């Protein structure tokens, strides 16, 4: 009986060994295939990016078809950058984009987090209804409300040449206000913060109360220091969204002095065909801020996409 089982075990061992060897080879093959496929998509993603970089360092002659080479003659040739930045008031565009992005991000961090805190932790009449109302904002796409938003900006009384009824002028259109105020808070940010604060234990509030903290003190001294992840995620989302926004500046601004980087970039299109090197140089410069943010916050970013996307 015992010898029998030992024999059986031996046999089994041999069989699994054989299987293991075959399996190992198969697994190795699969792993290599996996790497090949993944790398192939990296190449697909990278080719346009690399091409933008390479082109930006080329001269006009180098981008012409006859002399085409993949690599630029020198990576120190910044002529295209110089020329591109001279087409239009780029320091102004950058200053505008930086200013608007900074204020929008700062404001939205504050407003979204206090809103989220109140919705998650305080009790007041109509709280849930207000929250559900704000949530419906997630369903509204910008294009379906852009016309009234434009009208509202245009009809703010007593500014931009408007009379007290909001008639006659352009209101807040073509001012920083129009690029900042509507984006200082949003359904998505409030929702994200509320979800985050809801996971905190009740005892935290009780402890704060015993120590004599009111809601505001509790928020400032307890909740804010614990909010690093959510605030980082929000910062990244909002920075990328605001810096990259094209739709609202296109519609809300008209003058040269209010142009943002994205609008400046778009202006190149006309002259593109002859100077792709200029266009690519400008494109490259325009993405530097988001690249920097992405590098520093890559971890939070993907986490943020994961949590926000799934809980949307």
């Amino acid at each position, binding site marked *: 009986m015992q010898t029998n089982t030992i024999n059986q075990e031996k046999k089994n061992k041999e069989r699994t060994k054989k299987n293991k060897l075959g399996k190992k080879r198969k697994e190795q093959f699969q*792993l290599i295939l*996996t790497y090949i*496929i*993944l790398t192939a*998509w*990296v190449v697909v*993603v990278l*080719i346009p990016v690399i*091409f933008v970089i390479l082109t930006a360092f080329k001269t006009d002659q180098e981008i012409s*078809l006859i002399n*085409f080479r993949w690599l630029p003659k020198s990576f120190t040739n910044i002529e295209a950058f110089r020329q591109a930045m001279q087409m239009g008031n780029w320091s102004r565009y950058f200053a505008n984009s930086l200013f608007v992005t900074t204020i929008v991000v700062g404001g939205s961090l504050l407003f*979204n987090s206090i*809103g989220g805190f109140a*919705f998650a932790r*305080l*009790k*007041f009449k109509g709280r849930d209804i*207000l929250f559900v109302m704000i949530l419906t904002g997630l*369903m*509204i*796409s910008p*294009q*379906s*409300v852009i*016309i*009234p938003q434009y*009208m509202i900006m245009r009809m703010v009384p007593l500014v931009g040449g408007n009379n007290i009824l909001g008639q006659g002028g352009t209101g807040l259109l073509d001012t920083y206000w129009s690029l900042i*105020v*509507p984006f*200082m*808070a*949003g*359904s998505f940010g409030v929702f994200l913060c509320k979800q985050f604060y809801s996971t905190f234990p009740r005892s935290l509030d009780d402890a704060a109360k015993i120590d004599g903290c*009111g*809601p505001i003190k509790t928020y400032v001294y307890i909740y804010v220091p614990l909010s690093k992840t959510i605030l980082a995620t929000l910062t990244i989302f909002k920075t990328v969204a605001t*810096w*990259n926004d*094209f*739709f609202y500046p296109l519609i809300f601004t008209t003058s040269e002095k209010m142009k943002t980087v994205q609008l400046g*970039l*778009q202006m190149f299109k006309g002259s*593109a*065909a002859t100077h*792709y090197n200029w266009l*690519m140089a*400008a494109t490259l410069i*325009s*993405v530097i801020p*988001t690249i920097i*943010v*992405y590098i520093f916050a*890559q971890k939070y*970013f*993907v986490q943020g*996409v*994961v949590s926000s*996307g*799934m*809980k*949307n």
Partner: protein
Amino acid sequence: MKTKKKKNLEKQNIGYLLVAPSFLIYLLFIMIPVVWSVAMSFTDYNLVEANFVGFKNYINLFQDDLFVKGFMNTLRYSAMTIVPTMALGLGLAMLLNKKLKGKGLYRTWFYLPNIFSMVAISMAWIYLYDTRAGILNMALRKFGIGPVQWVSSPGMAMISIAIMSIWIGVGYNMVLNLAGLQSIPEYLYEAASIDGAHGWQKFIYITIPMLAPTTFFIFVMACIRSFQVFGQVLIVTNGGPVNSTTTLAHQIYLNGFEYYKMGYASSQAVVLLVVILTITLVNMRYGKGGETDAN
């Protein structure tokens, strides 16, 4: 008793104060505009005067070849982008869900296109698509094909826009799928292995059903996003050639801000609103699993 009541009241007021900024911005820039949009869609408002015209705008919509074309193009765009983006996103996520070296690096690279602005991406692709100098045609020339009129022929233009969008969207879907895959408990696969299931069977009987809520969510988001497609259309083709790439959002923009037919554009905006609301409501009705699964 009295002090308690007073304290409660105080707390309430602070709550209102804290949600006030968010709520006011929501009210002013979402809620009122929605109502206003609907109201304006019954007028012929042109930034100067407004007359009530009843359902005239809506009746005109369906006789407006451009609107119908824009709507059909939007559907075509959805059909061309949603399935490839979802399939590639899922495929790459499945591969990345194994034990691999450099996993984080792959994930970072895949997501990269999502941090670029639509303008920057469009500029890059305008160059890639250039009939003479673009690398796509240069590569094709090596094989004796082309030149392909990527964005300048009515037959190809929408396909070219779709390719760009797929390039962007795959990384986003990949990240969401990865999160979904990671939430599937390992023991399900172990149990299946014990029962003798192999790779393909595990995929069919475990991965697909467990991932269904994620997939549904991604599908809904993809529908919503494709109904809003605008930036790449405006920049790369501006709706052309011969209106082969004009979309719903592009038509709203043109009518509203190029021709100042605000009333008419509003009726198109309401159509967009209804479509997206329907998609979202279907999601809420049937997609409940998405929330519970993620938490």
